[in-house]
């Protein structure tokens, strides 16, 4: 994945050597879409309802994966996002259950995500523990906390305004979850690609020492990335809660791994320094489409898991550049 793109001279008239490996996620997406269209197009795979369904079910992973792209591009990892989604969902539901207005619940939920991100950031950047370990521990801890908060009881959300905005509603016939994921992905894309912060993230992940010698405050940059990740996980949790109209302690189990898979499928380097949000978005949709198609084909969960796992490995293998 470390391998290089050869820049071609502007002056040379012949064909630029396009690095198709950079577009592997889009190619796979089209291939998978085409395959299912042929196989199960008549079973409703291509119906607008089903396509919207894919978008709805992938929204949470997309939101988490967008932030995960920042984390991975900065050369770190965040495994705590899955359990954080449940924490935020539960807090959000509890605050509304206690009779407070929904905006307050949203603020509380985001705050819980920021708090987790802040803790991760402190341990990684100030105490210097590798993020893999910090967030692995945090993942356990928060999941335990999730179970403790309501003694594993689900909490239903009856506020229909909330549910409409965060998950169940439609705007001009487009599901709000799709709008959320598109907006978040576009926002992430713009920030990573066009802002100073984005450049600092990539430089930090590309060569931390060189970035520091250039005056980049790499610890601060990483800290912000963890805050971002925590907040995104909280948003994902609220979206999930809004879609289910309830909050449960086991929300987001395995979401961290799905998100990482989406990020790497999209073409972001696992070693940092190179990241693409559009790729991540496509990666997330690809995973969602595969799962959806396999369900419609009537495969059971065990077969679905085996096939989608295999496809992820194959896609990443194709995306690997020769010699890397």
């Amino acid at each position: 994945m470390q391998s290089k793109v050869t820049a071609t001279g502007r002056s040379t008239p012949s064909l630029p050597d396009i690095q198709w490996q950079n577009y592997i996620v889009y190619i796979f997406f089209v291939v998978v879409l085409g395959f299912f269209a042929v196989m199960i197009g008549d079973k409703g795979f291509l119906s607008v309802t089903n396509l919207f369904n894919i978008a709805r079910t992938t929204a949470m992973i997309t939101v988490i994966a967008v932030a995960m792209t920042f984390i991975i591009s900065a050369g770190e990892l965040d495994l705590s996002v899955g359990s954080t989604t449940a924490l935020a969902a539960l807090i959000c539901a509890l605050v509304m259950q206690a009779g407070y207005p929904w905006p307050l619940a949203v603020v509380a939920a985001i705050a819980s995500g920021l708090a987790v991100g802040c803790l991760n950031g402190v341990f990684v950047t100030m105490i210097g523990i590798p993020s893999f370990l910090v967030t692995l521990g945090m993942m356990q801890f928060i999941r335990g906390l999730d179970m403790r908060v309501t003694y594993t009881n689900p909490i239903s959300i009856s506020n229909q305004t909330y549910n409409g905005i965060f998950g169940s509603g439609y705007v001009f016939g487009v599901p709000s979850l799709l709008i959320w994921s598109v907006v978040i992905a576009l926002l992430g894309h713009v920030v990573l690609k066009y802002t100073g912060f984005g450049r600092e993230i990539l430089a930090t992940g590309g060569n931390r020492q060189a970035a520091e010698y250039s005056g980049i405050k790499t610890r601060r940059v990483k800290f912000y990335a963890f805050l971002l990740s925590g907040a995104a996980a909280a948003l994902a949790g609220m979206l999930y809660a809004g879609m289910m109209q309830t909050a449960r302690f086991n929300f987001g189990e395995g979401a961290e791994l799905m998100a990482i898979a989406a990020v790497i499928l999209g073409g972001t380097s696992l070693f940092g320094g190179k990241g693409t949000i559009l790729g991540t978005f496509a990666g997330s949709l690809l995973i969602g489409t595969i799962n959806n198609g396999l369900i419609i084909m009537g495969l059971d969960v065990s077969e679905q898991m085996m096939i989608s796992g295999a496809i992820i490995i194959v896609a990443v293998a194709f995306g690997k550049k020769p010699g890397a």
Partner: protein
Amino acid sequence: MSSPFLQMTHIGKSFGNIPVLRRVSFDLQKAEVHALMGGNGAGKSTLMKILTGVYTKDTGTISIDGQTVDITDTAASERAGIAMIFQEFSLVPTLTVAQNIWLGREPRLPGTPFINNAAMVRQSRLILQELGVDIDPEALVGSLPVGFMQIVEIAKALSKQARILVMDEPTSSLSEAETEALFDLVRKLKSSGISIVYISHRMAEILTICDRVTVMRDGETVMTEPCAGLSVARIVEAMLGAGHTASFEWQDRGDRPAVPPILHVRNLRLASRVQDVSFDIRPGEIVGLAGLMGSGRTEIAETIFGRRTAVSGEVIFDGQPLRGQADAIDRGIALVPEDRRKMGLVLDHSVRDNVLLPNLARFTRHFFVRDAEALSTVTQTIRDLKIKTDGPDKLSRLLSGGNQQKIVLGKWLARDPRLLILDEPTIGVDIGAKSEIVATVRAMADRGMAVLVISSELEELMAISDRILVLHGGRITQDLNRRTVASEEELHHAIQGHGHRAVDAIPA
């Protein structure tokens, strides 16, 4: 001359559609030390990477001992008896010397899959003895000084029965003593019949150690001649083209008028080596800092730049003490660090992104980076420093060593610093570019930039400095007006700690 041992004929190589080598021919006699020279990006490393199987050639033939050989990969090259001492060492620091030498080829206990550790150590000791060096085969490589690592690399090559050894800029990170030791080794290898290709930008070295010189320019060989009787001027002319000269003359820039110093370093004491260092630099002044490798020059530079904190003493810039690196950068201090790959560049990012990195704030408005605006600065930098790249978007990893160094210099010069600290600024830079860098730095100093230069190349210090500070035993032992330093030898003596002269009073 007898027919050559190695013959490379009409070698051609393009990356994408950019030709890097066009019909290059190169030959090597048995037991010859053959220098390969040329400007940055001329294609020296590429040619040698073709010989060692890292790249495959597009056209041409390679023959050894009269037999055409087909070098398709590194293993084939190894079988043909070719070994390369890489500039970025390819040793595993956490393994022992013996383990590194035999990595992947460990001797086994007869009839078993188990590694015969004793034999491995014994054979390593033999090779190291043959080389006449005292290195414990059971020491961890990570604990060795750089000079020794290189010797381990050579031992590794010999253990593979190499007959041709390629050394790409082997001395660039070696101290003077280590360089001497390396030269002894080269002579020893030569007398045992091994042929050596020696790439370097240091003229003096070439003329000392080599039998013949081949010069490349823009992917072509332009000269091959015996070293005896060859002048530096001839080589430089071949490298740069007729009519070009690289001037390395010192220019007397006169004494600074009564401007107050912009930098005061007072009684600096650092955790390592540096005991008590004080000096001043005035705007427009170029000050050289001379000293042995490991004397603490880099540590002083990093302290001024705010990357290290002093045990005691202070650094005052423009009347105010410095508070850390961010403050130093904000107030116009720049540091070109000594190791470009580790500290200077994000190798996987483009030339553009690397030049922009320390300048991001200047081109960022309301969070957004003004790429279009920034691009003109980047192209300006590429033009000013004559960085050889296909364009601003080329990955810096793909540039030749000397051009990478120019990016690091360029990214700081683009900030128009008030104090520029250069730590070994011309490692791996060709002689033409070296004199250009000297000229650029001088021009910026003329406009009021203060400069502190650290260099192990005395010739360079002598060429650029108005004043030379000698660091010895943790103190500034001499403060020499360049005008009073007659020769490199004199400076050399001062650095070794001989012949203390009273600290010259510099007319203010």
